């Protein structure tokens, strides 16, 4: 594994052993587990309070953005599990999000709504005849998406590296083509309209919390070590008794589950979905998020998602006309994506490990850098 010459320019350098923010000689993690749990619960309560205040006082626009941010964070954390933690560079999340979104929407839309939408070809029975509440619909959507990933995994994980990338990209493309053509299930290019607007701060942040709970704990278990071992050197991992295929399947299926559920919530946030929403473009955005945050870092994925969501809104200024030093500068629609692409290329060239490298947040790191907590004197 060649060391990255640019690393010294990143935050990463500060976090390295001996770096400014290094936790130094702290007690090992398992000795502080109870304290960390308390801190995590406290932080969750605090976040809940923040959301409650936001819901009561912030504008609908900010609330919407904050929901989108949480959904993107969920997607990025899941995507990072397979791409960053396990090192299997794949490009299919748009397919999983689409699957989750369609399944959930088809389950929650009322029969009358569906009949009104499916004008070209009626929706097949029994989907046309019933609807269920959002929660079970999300669970079903997640499980179906996971099943799809599981079946996909058999052909897909026969290849590695850039072939994996292109095959998964192909799958994403196939799903989009299917969504466009399977008129009697997806309503084709017209998509689904009138999906109830149910997703709010609690749904989106609740999902993020559940997703983080599962994925962070997985990563910090023996399974997580095995996944990282596969990323570092698959041959060696196999030689150490780790069945690389099944572990990739585990990471892939789990990330598909959460991507499917997040897709379902997304559908119930934006209320209209169509195949054009789930192109490779969606995957590209998630890729920027996890690469900028630091491929392999869950914290980085969350950070990247919120930077992307809020930063993307902030960048809208470049698309609007403005006055700069007395000059009228016309807005340039589409300029944001140009900038995002440049950011991706720039990060790869100058800051290959992203903002956080492969470092993750931990309480002991936070306490140590604040000069608090046991052992910080050391």
């Amino acid at each position, binding site marked *: *594994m060649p*060391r990255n010459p640019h690393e010294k320019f990143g935050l990463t350098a500060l976090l390295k*052993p001996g770096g400014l923010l290094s936790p130094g000689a702290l007690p090992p993690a*398992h000795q502080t587990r109870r304290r960390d749990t308390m801190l995590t619960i406290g932080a969750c309560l605090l976040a809940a309070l923040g959301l409650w205040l936001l819901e009561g006082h912030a504008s609908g626009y900010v609330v919407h953005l904050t929901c989108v941010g949480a959904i993107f964070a969920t997607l990025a954390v899941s995507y990072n599990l397979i791409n960053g933690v396990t090192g299997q560079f794949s490009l299919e999340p748009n397919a999983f999000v689409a699957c989750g979104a369609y399944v959930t929407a088809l389950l929650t839309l009322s029969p009358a709504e569906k009949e009104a939408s499916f004008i070209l070809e009626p929706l097949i029975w029994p989907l046309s005849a019933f609807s269920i509440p959002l929660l079970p619909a999300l669970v079903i959507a997640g499980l179906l998406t996971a099943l799809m990933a599981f079946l996909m995994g058999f052909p897909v994980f026969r290849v590695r590296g850039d072939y994996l990338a292109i095959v998964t990209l192909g799958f994403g493309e196939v799903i989009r083509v299917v969504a466009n053509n399977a008129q009697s299930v997806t309503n084709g290019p017209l998509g689904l309209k009138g999906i109830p607007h149910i997703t709010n701060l609690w749904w989106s942040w609740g999902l993020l919390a559940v997703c983080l*709970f*599962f994925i962070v*704990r*997985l990563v910090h*278990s*023996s*399974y997580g*070590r*095995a996944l*990282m*071992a596969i990323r*570092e*050197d698959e*041959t*060696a*991992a*196999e*030689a*150490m*008794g*780790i*069945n*690389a*295929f099944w572990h990739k399947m*585990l990471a892939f299926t*789990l990330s598909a589950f959460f991507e499917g559920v997040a897709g379902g919530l997304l559908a119930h946030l934006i209320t209209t979905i169509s195949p054009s929403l789930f192109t490779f473009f969606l995957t590209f955005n998630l890729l920027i998020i996890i690469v900028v945050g630091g491929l392999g870092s869950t914290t980085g994925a969350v950070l990247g998602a919120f930077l992307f969501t809020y930063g993307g809104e902030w960048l809208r200024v470049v698309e609007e006309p403005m006055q700069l030093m007395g000059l009228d500068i016309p807005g340039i629609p589409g300029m944001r994506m140009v900038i995002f692409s440049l950011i991706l290329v720039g990060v790869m060239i100058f800051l290959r490990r992203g903002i956080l490298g*492969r470092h993750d947040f931990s309480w002991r790191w936070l306490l140590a850098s604040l000069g608090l907590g046991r052992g910080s004197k050391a």
Partner: protein
Amino acid sequence: MSQPILQARGLTVRFGGLTAVDRVELDLPEGQLAGLIGPNGAGKTTCFNLFTGRIKPNEGKLTFAGQPIVGLRPSRINQLGMARTFQNIRLFGELSVLDNVLVGFHGGLKSNFLSAILRLPGYVAEERGMQRRAGEILELTGLTRLRDEPAGSLAYGQQRLLEIARALATDPKLILLDEPAAGMNPQETTGLAALVRRLRDELGVTVLLIEHDMRFVMKLCEQITVLDHGKVIARGAPHQVQRDPAVIQAYLGAGEGEGVAS
């Protein structure tokens, strides 16, 4: 002789036109400290790759602990009790020394991923056990001091030791060491020899090692197999092999300076 732990019959592998391993026969008795030597390119590493399932033989049979293993995944073969190190060190560079060793235990983990995520008591107990045993292995290999360093930052000799530590964590019956002393200084080599002997004497692990340092091999190994151009050209106790004309010829023919002197 007891039932051999590893048995090869007519083992052959070809890369294009090159027959890298040519009808190799091997019977490795349980508990032996054995050596596999031969000039560069003789096919030694390829033999290890065949034993551990990394490549499949074109012909031949392999039996490990009484079970045929040709066609099994490398991870399965490892779980049956065969571990290895790599000639061109293949550690998990970004993981800490401790984590490298802990990875070795994963193949033997009984808890499924859900009980790991939910930290069910069964998993927690297993994780404790792994941590404890990893500590013991680090102690044994003298790496305790470095447990939190990233493996990639270790010195060469330490990386070789960590390869062994990681392999030990998989709880092997047989361990294959591919040039464990390469790049070590004399002092480290002495320590290594002592470690290898302890593996066999105290842990009861059968050892098969490839090594170019002839003094090391001759002192340590009880039985030596010599490979040249993929064929076994001699086998026996160190002093027999050393005097074997075919072996001397192979080494002279290869034009290597290392010789077979002890």
